[in-house]
Structures are given as structure tokens and as C-alpha cells.
């Protein structure tokens, strides 16, 4: 548990001690008494150059890149709950960039490439594991779709290939190629895709932000957004009013709620998406497998749990639990695909509120309110994008535009400039 408003660490404290093999040896020799708290929990100042609402992966990555790339360090990250407790701590940790449309491939591949060195950049082990992701093709339509994606990826410089059922079986010995409903006809394989430790991504960014002098303020809910005409002047919070020049709204499922406080509407609907994990078992699958036709995907965590992504509810809700029948559908699909998991016990199930746009692509955009920026709409697949999202959002907030973000404007819907990924990845991803 964290403490709020801990004043024992002064604002101008010493820089964080770095993690290293030497540090482990040093702490081993003194009963681990020297490990520090990873980030400060200060009381909010009266004014910041920029405030980010939402201390999840995307919000913290935005703050990190504001400081690292643009020298803006008078920044606060406000979080109504606890750091990384929303969708950052609720996803299935999959990282991939095999998208169909060029703007998507650009930002997801940027994110994936940043993940490759994130542990070194943050000096924090995010356990990035480029173990490879297979998306199974189980209908002729899906085969054609993934062949098209593989060709598009080749043009975009994203390394993917379409592989045969035999190659799928080599990579995933526990798979049943001749399923009762949908045989495996091939797969879209991205070898440098994989997984990372989701909590560590949030914690690593938080530690780096705190080290740059930024204030991460948990248990601080934004209750209103203050404007002077069409320009933002600050926020009202449960810890009092805080002024700012620029405001980034990075709150995923609650984006619509926050947009209403700022006085505009978003093309977003929020639904609960579920995931579950099994009891831990010995290593049996060292890649990530996604079976979109039968609606299920699975990977094995380093602890041995089978991590399973479930379905999204078919109606708006904010409950963070999800409907029972989706679990049954997901498990049924995965037992078809991987018969050996039929005896596994499921340990935990949970839900997160995902923010869905009409074209299943995110929004990284200016808004009708000057100084307010939104980063949302990542829907069912935001974790993989965290570093690229933060990179682009920070550039947008600092410079007023970003090559990676420009296509993801909130006005693309009225202009008919969709980035339509709903065909390529209409289900959970």
C-alpha cells in the first residue's frame, strides 16, 4: 500500500539510486535495508505547466516524454485511484504492431521498438519478452485478411510473415490444428512481438517521472475542469484547485465523463472487457496465440499462469467486472484450440473499462478547448501502445502537433478519415 502526501521525502530530494547488479549485491549484504521508495507522493502545488489526468501507462508515458524529449518537468500526474490500477493493471500484456493501416503501424511499431529498450531507458526491469505473437487464421476470409496485413506490414517496415499450419504446430506444440469448428489454416506471425510486465511499465515510468521532479498525486480525483472562455485554466480536484497551462486527459474508459466536464463530447463508448488467469503450470507455450475467429487469446506468464483474454460486453458499462457468459465463450474457444487446458482451474477473473471508437483506432488530439488534449480510444488494445502513445502525446502537447498523432485527430470521424482497424482486428486485441 502506498501512503499519500508523504512529506518525509523533501521535494528537492537526491536523485533516485539506480538499479544495477552492484545494487543487488550491496543490498544483499545489508539485509535489503537500502531500497528506496520508487516515487514521491507530494502534496499538489498551486500551478503546473502541464497536468496529466490519469496515472496509468499512457498518462505516465506522456509525462515521461514531456520531460525527457521536451524539457517540460513542471508536471503533475493526477490519479483518482492508485497508480496503474486501471487498464494498465488489467490487460493481458500483449505487445505487437502487425496492424493493417499505415498510421496504426507507425505508432504501434514505434511503441514496440521503444519497448525493446525500455528497461534500459527507465533503469527499471519491465520484463519485455519478445517471444512472438501468432494470430491464427481459421477461415478463408481470415487467411486473405492476414495475407493482406503481412503485405501491408512489409511495406510499412514491420516484420511479420504468414506461416503455414505446420509452422504453427512447431511453434505451439499444444495447439489442436484440426479443431471441431475451425481448423487452423495458417497464422500471422510477428517474431519480435511479445509481452511485458504491465505493472512494471507503470512503475518504471512513475519512478522516472518522479526523478525528473514531476509530482505524481494519487487518490486525487478531478471533479471539474476550469476554463476561461475557450481556454483551460486548471482543474478542480478532491485535493483542491490546481492551475495549469496545458491539460492532458488520459483516462481510458472514463474519457467521456472527463470530456463532459471539459464541455465537449467524444466519439467513444465504454464497455467492460474481461480477462482471466489459470493456476500456474509448468512451461507449455512460449509464444502468444490469438484466435480471433473463435474469440480467445492466451499466453503463459513467467509465473506459469495461462493468461487469457476474454470478450467485451455488448452494452455500455463502467462496472469493471463483465458478464459471465463471455467467460464461458472464451474458455470454450480456447479448450477447442488447446485441449490440454480443459482441466485447468481458473484463479482470477477481472474486467477493465475500455474506450471504444467507431474505427477501433485511438484518439490523440487537440480538443475544442484550447490547452486541453486527449489521448484515449485505445479500446481493447492499449497496453502495447504505451511508449509510442506517450511519445506522440507529449510531442502534441509540447509542439502542438506530432507526425505520429496527426492522423488520430478526434475530428477524423466528421471528416470521414477513418483509420479503420475494425476489419483487421475487430475483436479483442
Amino acid at each position, binding site marked *: 500500500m502506498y501512503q499519500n502526501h508523504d512529506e518525509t521525502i523533501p521535494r528537492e530530494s537526491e536523485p533516485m539510486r539506480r538499479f544495477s547488479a552492484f545494487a543487488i549485491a550491496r543490498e544483499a549484504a545489508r539485509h535489503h535495508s537500502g531500497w528506496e521508495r520508487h516515487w514521491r507522493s507530494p502534496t499538489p502545488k498551486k500551478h503546473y505547466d502541464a497536468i496529466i489526468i490519469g496515472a496509468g501507462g499512457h498518462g505516465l508515458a506522456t509525462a515521461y516524454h514531456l520531460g525527457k524529449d521536451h524539457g517540460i518537468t513542471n508536471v503533475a500526474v493526477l490519479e483518482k485511484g492508485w497508480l496503474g490500477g486501471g487498464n494498465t493493471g488489467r490487460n493481458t500484456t500483449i505487445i505487437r504492431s502487425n496492424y493493417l493501416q499505415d498510421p496504426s503501424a507507425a505508432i504501434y511499431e514505434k511503441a514496440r521498438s521503444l519497448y525493446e529498450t525500455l528497461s534500459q531507458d527507465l533503469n527499471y526491469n519491465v520484463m519485455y519478452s519478445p517471444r512472438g505473437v501468432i494470430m491464427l487464421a481459421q477461415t478463408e476470409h481470415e487467411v486473405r485478411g492476414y495475407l493482406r496485413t503481412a503485405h501491408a506490414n512489409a511495406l510499412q517496415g514491420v516484420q511479420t510473415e504468414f506461416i503455414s499450419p505446420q509452422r504453427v504446430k512447431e511453434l505451439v506444440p499444444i495447439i489442436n490444428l484440426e479443431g471441431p469448428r475451425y481448423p487452423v489454416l495458417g497464422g500471422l506471425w510477428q517474431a519480435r512481438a511479445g509481452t511485458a510486465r504491465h505493472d512494471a511499465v507503470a512503475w518504471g515510468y512513475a519512478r522516472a517521472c518522479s526523478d525528473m521532479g514531476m509530482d505524481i498525486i494519487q487518490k486525487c480525483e478531478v471533479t471539474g475542469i476550469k476554463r476561461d472562455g475557450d481556454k483551460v485554466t486548471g482543474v478542480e480536484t478532491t485535493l483542491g484547485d490546481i492551475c495549469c497551462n496545458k491539460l492532458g486527459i488520459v483516462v481510458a474508459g472514463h474519457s467521456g*465523463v472527463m470530456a463532459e466536464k471539459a464541455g465537449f463530447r467524444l*466519439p467513444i*463508448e*465504454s464497455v467492460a472487457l474481461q480477462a482471466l488467469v489459470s493456476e500456474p503450470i509448468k512451461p507449455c507455450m512460449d509464444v502468444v496465440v490469438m484466435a480471433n475467429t473463435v474469440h480467445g487469446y492466451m499466453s503463459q506468464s513467467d509465473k506459469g499462469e495461462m493468461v487469457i483474454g476474454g470478450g467485451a460486453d*455488448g452494452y*455500455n458499462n463502467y*462496472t469493471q467486472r463483465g458478464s459471465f*457468459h463471455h467467460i464461458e465463450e472464451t474458455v470454450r474457444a480456447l479448450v477447442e484450440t488447446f485441449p490440454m487446458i480443459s482441466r485447468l482451474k481458473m484463479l482470477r477473473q477481472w474486467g477493465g473499462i475500455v474506450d471504444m471508437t467507431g474505427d477501433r483506432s485511438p484518439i490523440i488530439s487537440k480538443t475544442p478547448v484550447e490547452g486541453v488534449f486527449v489521448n484515449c480510444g485505445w479500446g481493447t488494445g492499449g497496453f502495447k501502445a504505451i511508449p509510442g502513445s506517450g511519445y506522440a502525446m507529449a510531442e502534441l502537447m509540447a509542439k502542438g502537433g506530432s507526425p505520429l498523432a496527426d492522423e488520430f485527430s478526434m475530428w477524423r470521424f*466528421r471528416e470521414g478519415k477513418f483509420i479503420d482497424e475494425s476489419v483487421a482486428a475487430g475483436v479483442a486485441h
Partner: protein
Amino acid sequence: MLILECPYCGVTGEETEFHGGGEAHLTRHGPGSSDDDFENYLFLRENPRGVHFERWRHVNGCGKWFHAARDTATLEVFGTYSAQTTEPPQDIKDAITAKRPGWSWREFK
């Protein structure tokens, strides 16, 4: 699990018997309308955390479309009513007011 009552055939069923159809009481704007109206109709949604009105279809039943008033944070259903209306009937509004005093949704309250 969400439990809804179809206002047409009177059957009470679990959500697997129904299919959600998104936000209710949208005013359709077609050719000749302003860009703002068209964007509002086609893309922008209330998406509230709380009282919400939406369309449902009794797919595994009588097949009729109907409306439901529901709380998106608690999944409490305040009532279902006919689709042949452009605004929630007074008894539904009263049922919501009894449990969520001061509620509002678009121009309704």
C-alpha cells in the same frame, strides 16, 4: 448478469436472450443536414457513467426492438418501454427520479 423485461412479449430474460443496440433516442440526420448534426447523429455519444437510455432487441424471443433505462455504473435497470417513442415515458422518468434524484441525460431530466 443483466436481466431485462421485453415490453412487447412480457418475457423476463437474461442478457444472452437480448442484443444491445446502442444509445436510444438519436435523431437521424441525413443528406442536407449540417456537418455538426451529422457528426452528432453518427458518431458522438453520451456514454455517461450513470443513467443511460439505450436500444435493445429481443433477438432470442419475439425479435422486437425496445428501449431500456439503465444505470451504467450499477447495471440497475429502471425500466423498459416501447421503441415507438422519441422520448422516455413519464413513468420511466419517475422511476429513475425515485432512485437517482437530479438525474439528467441529454435534454431529459
